[in-house]
């Protein structure tokens, strides 16, 4: 079943701020094996000019998906999660994420398009701290085999 294209442009916002703690950053950095002092030691982070511990570049994956989930898990979209693979991921960091941040997210279904027999669902999430833009993340999910069958081209019809 093809995805419901009416979902393009739909948005969902986080319901409460995502609080970034030193513990979150240290745990995530350790999980990816990142021993950068600025992820673990506040003094090292400050020496680089940051106000507190700095998150690794992909850290926002820990918040972004919760907001996007309310969009992509809506039954009316018609996405069968067992057919989904992660196709593409992009982070634009307008400034580093640091411990002490309280972040809000707004996710938007940016597009749904065919790619052969698959469909590509792209969700863009804007992450802010108050009025300040912090990051823009783009997540492309591949819905395997859900594209509508090609209709016969006019020239091929008998």
């Amino acid at each position, binding site marked *: 079943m093809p995805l419901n294209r009416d979902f393009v442009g739909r948005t969902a916002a986080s319901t409460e701020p995502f609080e970034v703690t030193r513990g979150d950053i240290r745990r995530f950095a350790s999980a990816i094996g990142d021993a950068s002092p600025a992820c673990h030691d506040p003094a090292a982070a400050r020496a680089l000019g940051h106000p507190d511990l700095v998150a690794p570049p992909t850290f926002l*994956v820990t918040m972004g998906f919760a907001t996007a989930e309310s969009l992509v898990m809506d039954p009316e979209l018609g996405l069968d999660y067992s057919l989904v693979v992660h196709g593409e991921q*992009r982070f634009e960091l307008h400034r580093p994420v640091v411990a002490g941040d309280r972040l809000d997210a707004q996710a938007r279904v940016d597009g749904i398009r065919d790619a052969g027999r698959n469909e590509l669902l792209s969700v863009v999430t804007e992450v802010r701290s108050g009025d300040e833009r912090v990051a823009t993340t783009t997540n492309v999910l591949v819905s395997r085999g859900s594209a509508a069958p090609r209709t016969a081209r006019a020239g091929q019809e008998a």
Partner: protein
Amino acid sequence: MPSYDEVEVGQALPAQSFSLTRADLVRYAGASGDFNVIHWNERVAKSVGLPSVIAHGMLTMATAGRVVTDWAGDPGAVVEYGVRFSRPVVVEDDDTGATVDVEGVVEGKLDDRRVAVVLTATVDGSKVLMAARAVVRLP
């Protein structure tokens, strides 16, 4: 830490090899909140046609990114990072797991002291990421 003025287009970043074991996948699941069963349950992974448990794509992405942040000396230097996931990283249930080999090359010098780096991440010689590119702002 490299400075913008010293960096040259075509310059190679120090390459690194990273090992990903089942324990790393469990740790990443906990830290990221992604508990998809194909990343820890071999029975379920095989039932959906995978050869075995596979690493989170985001863990592969984060791991490859370490070549950039280790070189830059500041995880906060990264202003852009994007990848396409081209093939899963299979992690067998043994002590060595999978080895991800990551290389980086300076692709270009941009305005505002920004430098673009192209990354190549392979497992057993096959690319696991495509179009992997980061932009860092250097002092």
